[in-house]
């Protein structure tokens, strides 16, 4: 039985109609399709194999581990079904981790986007030294997270730090940035906003510079002031940029790890989900199964956020 003979009964009417013809024609079409398929495979297979091996296989392996009670380093494990997932959602530690993740994500995404937009608006004006300002604002984004963490840790040191010195000049005492869990979260949020706002600013700047000037000029002629022009025209026209930034910064925030690990190695108050994955497996507990379950939950959250944004938020976007 040939391939075309097998495929024909399963084809829907529309496809079948298109494929109908003389047997010779069908054979020619089939032979060409097969040739195209092999060409496609020759080009795509190396990438598909690599993706399957290094992305999807670990993903599935992790899913498998998440169903186990497995101590890292042990050669044996017990199948416990969804117990790790139940523990994460019902334990106080799991709930706290989700709350910390939510606060961190909202604060870093909101902070870097709002400040990024403000900087973009400022940098879009013809001011002296704006090239230097653009470079200075964007530079932190490309710096190593480890280096950034170490430098900021010194700045935040309540005894030696530059910030403590500044606060002492105005008769204030430095908070215990690292030891106090609430301040520790504020600390890492500040650093992430500082590091990421340059990215938002540059993307927004690109958006601002591509706005149709005739629309803004028309509004100006109609008597709209700068604030009105910004809120009623520029901002809605920037919605594709905002949408793009919203997706990328949320995904980045949910995967933020390096600075948190460097500045707060114990993760007290800063154990966002991805850091909790690390802490549970490698931070002393060696709970590889539980850690894998948190990683799967994080993966599902990321997937849901992306789907929701694409299905619902994108509809509100105004493409010029």
């Amino acid at each position, binding site marked *: 039985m040939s391939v075309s003979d097998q495929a024909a009964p399963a084809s829907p009417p529309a496809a079948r109609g298109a494929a109908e013809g003389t047997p010779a024609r069908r054979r020619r079409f089939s032979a060409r399709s097969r040739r195209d398929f092999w060409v496609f495979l020759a080009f795509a297979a190396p990438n598909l194999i690599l993706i399957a091996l290094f992305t*999807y296989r670990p993903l599935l392996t992790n899913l498998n581990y998440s169903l186990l009670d497995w101590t890292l380093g042990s050669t044996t494990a017990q199948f416990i079904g969804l117990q790790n997932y139940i523990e994460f959602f019902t334990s106080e530690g799991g709930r706290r981790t989700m709350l910390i993740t939510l606060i961190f994500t909202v604060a870093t995404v909101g902070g870097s986007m709002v400040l990024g937009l403000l900087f973009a608006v400022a940098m879009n004006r013809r001011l002296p030294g704006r090239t230097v300002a653009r470079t200075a604002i964007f530079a932190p984004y490309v710096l190593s997270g480890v280096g950034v963490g170490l430098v900021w840790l010194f700045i935040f040191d309540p005894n030696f730090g530059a910030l403590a010195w500044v606060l002492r000049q105005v008769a204030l005492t430095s908070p215990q*940035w690292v030891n106090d869990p609430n301040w520790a979260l504020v600390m890492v949020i500040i650093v992430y906003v500082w590091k990421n706002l340059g990215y938002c600013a540059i993307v927004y700047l690109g958006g601002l510079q591509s706005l149709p000037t005739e629309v803004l000029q028309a509004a100006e002629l109609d008597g709209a002031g700068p604030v009105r022009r910004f809120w009623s025209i520029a901002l809605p026209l920037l919605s594709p940029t905002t949408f793009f930034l919203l997706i990328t910064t949320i995904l980045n925030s949910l995967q933020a790890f390096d600075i948190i690990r460097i500045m707060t190695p114990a993760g007290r108050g800063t154990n966002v989900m991805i850091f909790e994955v690390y802490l549970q497996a490698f*931070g002393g507990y060696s709970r590889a199964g539980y850690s894998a379950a948190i990683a799967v939950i994080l993966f599902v959250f990321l997937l849901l956020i992306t789907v929701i944004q694409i299905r619902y938020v994108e509809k509100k976007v105004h493409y010029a």
Partner: protein
Amino acid sequence: MTSPLRTGLSRRTLLSLSGLGAGAFALAACGGPTVGGDSSNDKAKEVDFEGVKPAKKIDFWSTHPGGAKEIETKLIKDFTDKTGIEVNLVTGGQNYEEIAQRFQTAQAANSGLPAVVVLSDVWWFRYFMNGNIIPLDNLLKQLDFQLDDYRETLVEDYQYDGKQWAMPYGRSTPLFYYNRDHFKAAGLEDRAPKTWDEFAEWSKKLTEADTPFMYPDLAGYAGWTLQNVLWGRGAEYSHEWDLKLTEQKSVEAFQWVQDSVHKEKWGQVASSDSADSFAGGVCSATIASTGSLVGILEAAKFDVGVGFLPAGPVDGPVCPTGGAGLGIPAAIKPEEQLAAAEFIKFMGEPENTAQFSAATGYMPNRKSSDMSAIIKETPQIETAIKQLEHTRKQDYARVYLPGADQEIAKAVASILNDKADVKQSLEGLQKNLQGIYDKDVKPKIEKQK
């Protein structure tokens, strides 16, 4: 227009995709741990080294404790010159946790394991429970290790179930460091306080620094440095596997620590390494590892004094041991294990442990190590060595329960930073530690028997 995605999904395609999915799941299930069934793989096995010849080349994973890379390289060269066995020195991590990550990951992958690995006081027991390391007893006998010349407490730290699971390497104890200039300015004697109560009195006169005393940072082994306070007050984290955190003496000990910070205000908690705060003059005294001694002496711009950890009203002077030992993985060839044991023996020779000690500030593991030249150069080391007479093996709860150090640090952080109710915090801690013991430890140690 019909979506191409819809038209392509025939029953056959669906079946093919299902097959692919099932295959992928089957592939995902390959590797990693054996699920269910026989768990005897986790039991460490005795190895017979009769007729085994040592390997010609082995890997040694180290954290280079106390900046030991240079001295390790030198000692490795001496070892190769003596035995012909090449040792590849690998930086396994910056600290004990990082090397543990790497070692456990290699265990999970069952590849790339070293022949010798640095393992800390809180990690080796986990490797024992998982069957990751071999008992060294046969090797100690075959290679004629002179155990009676090793310092007993440092060797006993790695004994469990009647077997020796590692040998001491970069061993340390906490040490009391004080700023002699500050003490002089306060009109105090040039010595460490004999008791904590004495220091509480002295602290009223210590006004030169931001704070008289700095507790070590909570991320860095709070449970280790506070062990002395507990023992001094007749308390303990646990007596063997019996947790003692909610007993009155333990509550009083932690209450005393909290009061020193919030009521009497002579203590603060460091944000980073307390050795740095001390060397920078932020505090007049602190507790830090003997492994920090060389670094502090190099960094401090004042006269550094050291002393035994102060005693409590019930017991003391008393001090926990700490630091790292050397172990041999189970999942490597006997030839490599034998070569590894020869290397461990060499690193523990009296003259070599003395060199290591001089370079890092860690304790000499052998009684016969000639430390006179080193003591002449750095007299403070003598105090650390003398304090070894007052060392005690740490409580099981801190060193044998996975994650207990992190749980203790969290509870101490609540008590010291959030002024949390001491009794309530310790009850929570005890509950968590009991859970870890029941779930992760008890079944495994029963299996090892």
